[in-house]
């Protein structure tokens, strides 16, 4: 495929979304799609301007992002630490891994009733759910990353006199990094998904609250808006991690290729 056909392909890809958007608007105006079912794109945009002006949007995005990132930081760091411990120490793995694999089968959103019992309905409960949701992808992929570091490289490091610390910092951690990033990107998806559900537990701010309130008051334009914002935030988080990945994994042929094309 030449560069020209590539560019054409990318252009044709935007055709469908634009077409859908236009159809949606036209059909809304003609009344084929009633406002009750789906508001027109222009109405959603009007809703966007409204909540933007009132300052609600910024505040709710701020609250939700804080929850998302704090939960990610807590669950992610525990998952990373346990992944490291179990990747580096056979004893630690023998003791804890079976248990963790058993807990992994529990869908974390099923725990909501128990989480309310244990953590109440405040931030604690929401953070716990997000943290639990992101814990497993990061734990599993950190462990996997360490376990699949090329043993030949480790033998090489030993032969050349590296001590445990140097071996970890110069061989094991960089080798596990691509897998850790896979886990992180998966965790981000779970993070937003969890928050959407967790913010319906009784919140008085946050995107989930905004969406819930809009649902209760039948403001479908705001409902659609909040969905779009979730999508945007998800995309942003993902793009950020991809950027980070590209920076940290410069050495990786996959990223050199991407950089070139």
């Amino acid at each position, binding site marked *: 495929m030449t560069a020209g056909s590539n560019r054409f392909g990318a252009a044709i890809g935007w055709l469908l979304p634009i077409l859908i958007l236009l159809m949606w608007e036209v059909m809304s105006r003609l009344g084929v799609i009633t406002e009750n079912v789906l508001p027109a794109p222009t109405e959603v945009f009007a809703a966007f301007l409204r909540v933007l002006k009132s300052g609600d949007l910024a505040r709710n995005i701020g609250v939700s992002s804080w929850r998302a990132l704090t939960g990610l930081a807590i669950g992610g760091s525990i998952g990373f630490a346990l992944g490291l411990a179990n990747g580096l120490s056979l004893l630690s793995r023998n003791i804890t891994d079976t248990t963790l694999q058993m807990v992994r089968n529990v869908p974390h959103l099923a725990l909501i009733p128990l989480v309310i019992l244990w953590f109440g309905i405040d931030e604690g409960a929401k953070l716990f759910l997000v943290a639990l949701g992101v814990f497993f992808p990061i734990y599993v992929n950190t462990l996997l990353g360490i376990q699949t570091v090329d043993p*030949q*490289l480790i*033998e*090489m*490091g030993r*032969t*050349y*006199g*590296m001590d445990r610390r*140097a071996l970890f910092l*110069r*061989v094991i951690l*960089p*080798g596990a*990094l691509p897998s850790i990033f896979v886990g992180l990107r998966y965790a981000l998806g779970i993070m937003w998904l969890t928050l959407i559900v967790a913010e319906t537990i009784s919140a008085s701010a946050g995107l989930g609250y905004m969406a819930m309130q809009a649902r209760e008051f039948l403001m479908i334009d705001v409902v659609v808006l909040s969905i779009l914002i979730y999508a945007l935030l998800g995309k942003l988080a993902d793009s950020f991690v991809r950027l980070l990945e590209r920076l940290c*994994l*410069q*050495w*990786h*042929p996959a990223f*050199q290729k991407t950089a070139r094309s």
Partner: protein
Amino acid sequence: MAKPQLRSVETAPAPAPPAFSFQGVSRRFGAKSVLSNIELTVPQGEFVAIIGKSGCGKSTLLRLLAGLDQPDGGQISRAQTQPGQSSIRIMFQEPRLLPWARVVDNVAVGLTGLAGRAEAKARAHDLLAQVGLAGRDGDWPSVLSGGQRQRVALARALIGQPSVLALDEPLGALDALTRIEMQHLLGRIWQTQGFTAVLVTHDVAEAVILADRVIVLDAGKVALDLAIPLARPRRHGHPDLALYEQKILAQLFGDEAI
């Protein structure tokens, strides 16, 4: 087959002190005996090639030499080294470069514990030039060709100025033309630095062109110990080399039609 315990090489009339020697060394894995009662003494500065069929124990012998594995019986003695010099370095069959470290940092790995960061980097820079990779310091290993990677691995093994350099099929993965280039490089550096070289190879022509002495391993024993007293530089395809080659091939394949 009885072999002389210490051999004098034509190019070095006065016998040098031994760099290492194996005395009755055996190694078995489970019930399978891989090496049995190996006797081998290599003088300092000699270039020894070890050849043998797949699975005959060549890598095992090298790992024993480098101390990556312990013998089940017998003794291995090694000459002392000076401070700031590494004793034995292995160059593996694969380059085993760290993909996430730039070329110069990969070479500097060879000075772990022997020199500080800045010094290691400076020396790595110099050595890269020696192996014909001047100006490639900042590249990632992934953009190098197979032959260039092997040269980086060679530089890493050499930078610690080892007294003994053990090479486990270092050129096995290369195409024949690049391989010939690398053989020249290796021979030149060995002549300059004067370390003891132990080269494991599958390629009989390679062994003959590089080594002072070729050891054929078979069934865990030294089946042939052949001196190659030819002058250097040696030219590929030279009729004299062909004679030695045929002798070794005959040993390897018995006398089936080759």
